């Protein structure tokens, strides 16, 4: 209760605590309008200037980075283009080499085949020769044998000279 009485006492001399007081308005106005003027003309412009400069700088850096990135991107696409070209070229080279190898192989094979054919022909010729030789060597003996066999069968002497042409004809034309 004591403080209520105290307050009641002091209301008589004191002004309303809510109403503004002239001297405080005066000093407040002086301070605020000075601050406003100072901020407007002295304090703020350099700060804003440096902040804008920094923003511009950062923006420029970002732009440069963007440009560099797009350049890097185009370089990369160029490289990949080149890579595609190189791959195509390599494929072409490989194809050409393959075709060449194929052709060489074909020629080699055909050469080998012709060699083989020649050898075969030689061998056949040799065989035929050998056979002919054998045949020709066989003739007198066969004639002798035939003549002997005929003599035995007919009980009379068959002259070799008459057997010889028959045998030769037979041997030369066995069918």
């Amino acid at each position, binding site marked *: 209760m004591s403080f*209520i*009485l105290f*307050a*009641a006492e002091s*209301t008589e001399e004191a002004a*309303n*605590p*809510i109403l503004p007081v002239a001297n405080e308005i005066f000093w407040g106005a002086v301070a605020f309008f000075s601050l406003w003027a100072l901020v407007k003309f002295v304090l703020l412009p350099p700060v804003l200037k440096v902040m804008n400069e920094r923003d511009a700088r950062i923006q420029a850096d970002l732009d440069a980075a963007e440009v560099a990135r797009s350049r890097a991107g185009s370089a990369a696409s160029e490289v990949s283009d080149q890579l595609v070209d190189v791959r195509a070229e390599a494929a072409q080279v490989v194809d050409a080499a393959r075709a060449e190898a194929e052709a060489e192989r074909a020629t080699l094979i055909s050469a080998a085949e012709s060699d083989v054919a020649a050898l075969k022909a030689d061998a056949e010729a040799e065989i035929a020769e050998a056979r002919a030789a054998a045949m020709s060597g066989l003739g007198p003996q066969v004639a002798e044998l035939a003549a002997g066999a005929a003599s035995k069968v007919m009980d009379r002497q068959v002259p070799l000279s008459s057997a010889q042409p028959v045998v030769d004809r037979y041997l030369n034309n066995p069918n």
Partner: protein
Amino acid sequence: MSVLANTAAQAIELAAEAGDADAAKATAGASSAGFAYGLAAIGPGIGIGYLVGQAVQAMARQPEAAGQVQTTMFLGIAFTEALALIGFVVFILLKFA
């Protein structure tokens, strides 16, 4: 609340009986000042609670809009709070002026 009102009324009666008009006035002022502020605080209390709750919900749903929501929230609080503050001014006026 009625108990409080009764005690306040009793205090005023007591002061009036004692023949001290100023004290009676001061007591009446003090008790009604308490009522004024208490009543003035209810609405804005609910209002600010609801407002901030909704703002938190909005920020949770859209965290990327948090800055905008926050600014609007402070604006809303400022307007809602003004009612409580007028109640406070009335309190000061009743109590001290």
